[in-house]
């Protein structure tokens, strides 16, 4: 099946078998920040934004991506110019092994687009579909709240890839 969609702002054309999963197509397209941790929607490591909505690419068919705007962690920002969420994760000790981190930042981005001033409980709820085995989540919550404060303090700045609510 011929597909076309935007991936982190770039138009992509791909040819995929009907039964190919989105996570496999994305990784084939070198979006290696999209991880597979379970394949059954239980861990969130494969999280991406589809038209700004937090979804699990292991439970999407590649065919479902056609015509969509996709954002992965790399689309939020990069090392030279990190997104406030990414920088907050790094600065607040929210990263240990880092395998869950791309998916977590996607979940955080989706949250902050809808709720710019979440409580700690709001953050935990929003991230409850993303498993982390290393951190116990405490510093991840710290980081998301810090990112929220930073984003609130700079309303004119629209970070790259920030989703519309």
């Amino acid at each position, binding site marked *: 099946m011929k597909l076309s969609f935007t991936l982190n702002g770039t138009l992509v054309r791909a040819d995929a078998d009907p039964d190919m999963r989105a996570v*496999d197509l994305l990784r084939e397209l070198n979006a*290696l*920040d999209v*991880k597979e*941790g*379970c*394949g*059954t929607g*239980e*861990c969130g*490591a494969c999280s991406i934004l589809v038209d700004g909505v937090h979804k699990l690419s292991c439970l999407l068919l590649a065919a479902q991506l056609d015509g969509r705007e996709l954002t*992965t*962690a*790399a689309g*939020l*920002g*990069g*090392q*030279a110019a*990190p*997104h406030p969420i*990414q*920088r907050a*994760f*790094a*600065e607040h*000790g*929210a*990263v*240990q*092994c*880092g*395998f*869950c*981190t*791309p998916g977590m*930042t996607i979940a955080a981005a989706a949250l902050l687009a809808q709720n710019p001033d979440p409580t*700690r409980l709001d*953050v*935990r*709820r929003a*991230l*409850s*579909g*993303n*498993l*982390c*085995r*290393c*951190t*116990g*989540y*405490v*510093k*991840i*919550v710290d980081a998301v709240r810090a990112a929220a404060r930073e984003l609130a303090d700079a309303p004119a700045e629209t970070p790259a890839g920030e989703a519309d609510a």
Partner: protein
Amino acid sequence: MAAGTPPGLRADALAKATGAERFTLDLAPADCLFAGACRPGKALNIAHGRVRGVDASAALAVPGVVCVLTAADVPGTNLQGIVHKDQPVLCGEVIRHAGDPVALVLAESAEALRRGLAALRVDIEPLPGVFDPEEALKKGAPLVHAGREGGNLLLRAVIEKGAARAALKNAPVVVRGEFSTPMQEHAFLETQCGFAQALPDGTLDMTVSTQAPFRDRFEIGHALGLDPLKIRIRAPYLGGAFGGKDGATVQCLLGLAALKAGGRPVRMAWEREESILAGYKRHAVRLRYTLGADTDGTLLALSCRLTYDTGAYAHLGVEVMELGMEHAAGPYRIPHTFIEGRCVYTNNPIAGAFRGFGVAQVSPAFEGLMDALAAKLCLDPLELRRKNALLPGDENCSGVVLTSSVRLDECLGELAAHPLWTGRAAWCEAAPPFTFRGVGLAAVFNGMGYGRGLPDMAIAKVELTEAGDFLVYNSVTDMGQGNAAAFAILAAQELNQQPGAIRLVQPDTERCHPSGSSSAGRTTYTYGNALLRACAAMRGKLLSRAAMPLFVDDLETLTLIPGGVRHTPSGRTMPLGVLARYLPRDDRISVAEFLMPVAQNPPDTGRGFQIGFPHLFFAYGAHLARIEVDGLTGRVRVCDYVAVTDGGRVLDRSCFDQQAQGGAAQGIGYALIEDFQARGGLIQTADLSTCLIPTALDLPDIESLAVDGDEPTGPRGLKGVGEVGLNGPAPALAAALEDAVGVRLRDFPLTPERVLAALKKRKTPSRRRA
């Protein structure tokens, strides 16, 4: 590390936060073959069986399947194992657990692999199996390893100090208890995986998610009949491991596949279900304890029997049990101990290394009896612990004199003053409807390093590059604990350079030096110490090498500054990039080793151990849990959790807290949620929908406190704290539960079902009624 990374930021953090860091599978070449193991026990519901035959004809007919390998195709001994080599790479005669592999399929694509595996016809004749370690020790029990001298008993060992039996007979107060702890699944987010290629020069080049790249070579070499020094293993950052990637997982299978792949690269990645089926687990343990004390609470004697279910193969079963035994009597002064351990084979999933390594299992037992003692004597549980807490210079339960740092009492002191402890009565009284509140605490410890019998050594290499920055050749895998970042900090400090001037090479057996496994809380301590020496040597070398070009005759006047060597009196500076070009490469490299000190004059209290006994360095901790128990459902909610840790001096507070919080999180999961089940050796919790770990809604904000300490032998005075945090929650939560509902549960996990049953059985209603 990116230039300009702000100081204080963990070196790997930004690359990981932006999704730029590449883990093992991300690095696999595009033209890889795919390899997968056939583990027929699961589909056939057979945990123990004779392999009658593997019919590969249908599989070979699947388009894209390249070959099907069986035990007959394995060169070498076909036996892997870390210490005991008892685990076939491919089983030719018998499968001993439901995840045992009997065939390896190589295919051109993931889909062809899947179809090929599905098309294999394997004939397994069921054999009687044994799934309970006590049953396995009985006469006439089915043998897991037929013909093995010793039968199903892998090892019986004893630690005996003084005369415990007599002391217990005479003890004024005696408390007893039987406890059980379950298997636990590591559930690292990145499953077991790797890729490998047999190169034309005879090298086997492998990249694998492993905690022990240097040792892996020997495990692969022994199993496949290869020269270990012609095996190159690279270990990128791991997506979690916690012990489950210590010892060959994919390595031997992958090596075999590479040998048969005609020079093509091959990749193997265990899907989550396979990871749960075939990956190593924490040992389930049964514990029978007796503790005797004086009427004032002074501990006198402890006797216990520990039975570790090591599953189908030994892995590190003996070493796990050994460490558990060394900790079995708790971090307390006890003159008489008799600690008996039996490590037993069964046809259950393979038990192996898991953070807290045998100690997580004994912690709820010794702490459970301390609470029982406190209750019997009407003593405050915290005061009872302080009274008996080990102090520097004391002899621990194994008879080791603690010449290393001990700050357990200080940890307990922090809790004593903590508002969650001091305010506990009022908090419990204010329980909402249908809810019982409780507060509990626990004192825990965990040995660091390998102990005796095995050199706990690391060799660090530092290189001044032509560009004038430094490469640190990290030899110990960073599985997320941040040791690489710690090394970057140490090197920057020691060499007086900006953080951005230090780059890390992750473990690569060709470029780095053997330094043992990433385990046992040892990496920052042992490699860190080696690194400090290497950096000191580098500093001395650079100063003396700069003397000639700077025309300086007194080395004392030279100093290493960020980016250069400076002659302090005149201010003349030679940039490192310039100095580097004066030196041939082998003069720009410093290598130094460090060997962890061991207990001198070890006591003869330990019998039966080959390696491990005894340990000398321990991290200590005191934990507190505040819980709410729902009286209608038995669900336990952890409202607050405090972990106070003695890790010597704290090098990086954020990394320190990460270990405490992460360990406690796994411990809370272990105590409450992670109900790993196998019946007849068949895993019932086979994927992440039933094999549960805590989500963000299942854990509180874990508060991590550090007591001031100093371990003089450690780099910057630190000692390893990677494991101790996991040991606290099971005992602390059991204590909190007893405080809440008046019943002490001794079988873990503390499931809602067990809690509800306990609530029903209470004779007198708790004073905190719903």
